[in-house]
């Protein structure tokens, strides 16, 4: 049990995909201007990550591994991810049109979010990949992404009304903030001893 907890904490904080492994930076910078948008994308990405992580593991375990087709990993995972994202987009369009409009282009761009493919590939690259590991890695990395995205959006909203020197306004201060956040997340490195 405790190893699953460690896995979850590990993916959310210690090996945070955005701030420690530097994956998925495009939506991190792109959708963090408003906290509502950020929260919406965070939820959508977490959902997609969980589903696609599980589905791509299932594809690997049920289809690719028995037939020794591991060289098709990337291709089939991209297919699975694209389907998951498209499905999420359809559901969101039906259930929450405002969020669908606000997210706009970033919703289909979840497909190209490196975290999604990264998690799917890292799952099957472990020594003994299991279903529960894949599920927890998917959930954990999604929650980690959601956490830093919402935190970062909240900070950017505050910075927007702060008196920032002219040369640093806009993207510059956002980059500096992201860098400092990343630095602070490095502090989690000693939290879990593997």
């Amino acid at each position: 049990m405790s190893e699953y907890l460690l896995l979850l904490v590990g993916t959310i904080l210690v090996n945070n995909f955005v701030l420690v492994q530097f994956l998925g930076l495009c939506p991190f910078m792109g959708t963090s201007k408003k906290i509502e948008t950020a929260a919406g994308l965070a939820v959508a990405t977490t959902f997609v990550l969980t589903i696609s992580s599980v589905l791509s593991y299932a594809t690997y375990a049920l289809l690719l591994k028995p037939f020794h087709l591991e060289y098709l990993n990337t291709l089939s995972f991209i297919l699975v991810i694209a389907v998951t994202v498209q499905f999420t987009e359809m559901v969101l369009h039906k259930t929450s049109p405002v969020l669908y409009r606000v997210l706009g282009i970033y919703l289909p761009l979840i497909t190209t979010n490196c975290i999604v493919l990264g998690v799917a590939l890292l799952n099957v690259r472990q020594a003994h990949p299991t279903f529960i590991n894949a599920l927890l890695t998917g959930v954990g990395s999604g929650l980690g992404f959601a956490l830093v995205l919402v935190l970062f959006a909240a900070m950017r909203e505050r910075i927007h009304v702060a008196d920032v020197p002219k040369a640093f306004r806009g993207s510059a201060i956002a980059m500096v903030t992201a860098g400092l956040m990343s630095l602070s997340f490095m502090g989690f490195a000693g939290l879990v001893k593997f």
Partner: protein
Amino acid sequence: MSTFFAIFIAIAAVVLLALLAGGILGFAAEKFKVDSDPIVEQLDALLPQTQCGQCGHPGCRPYAEAIANGEAINHCVPGGQDTINKIADLLGVEPLPLDSEYGVEAEVKKVAYIREEDCIGCTKCIQACPVDAILGAAKHTHTVIVSECTGCDLCVEPCPVDCIDMIPLPVTRQTWHWQAPQGVGSTPVRSAKLIPTQQIG
């Protein structure tokens, strides 16, 4: 032979995966079908329904559809800043000031008034009126139904004898309301000036 077999297996696996994916998406497309963009309904409800066409669209609903497709939100003159703020709130975008290219927001609500001694009964204003608020027939004087007029002033332009005036709506017990004190309860206009430059707290 075994190479051919391996290639066949690989192709079969990918085809199977693609078929599964296509099946799921096809099912979802049918199940989660969106008949009309629901955001258009919400936008249409916010617009003033004057159907005046000052935004360049034939009515409020076409403009609502245009906004949903990415047109600027500040083209509705009768709605004014109030409507722009509400639309911005709904769509989660920054409110803009009214685009002066389309018109200037009236300080007070105005209605059209036809000076009947000058009217020649040409019916041109009747054709121009988007809400059928002008009553009259050919060679008879026309008049404006005050309660129907939205003050869009589309009838002023076509009148050949310039007998239509836009007059402020007379204040009655139904239309009078308290003057809101400055800054309290009045619609805040967000502009660069109002964004605080120093963080408080």
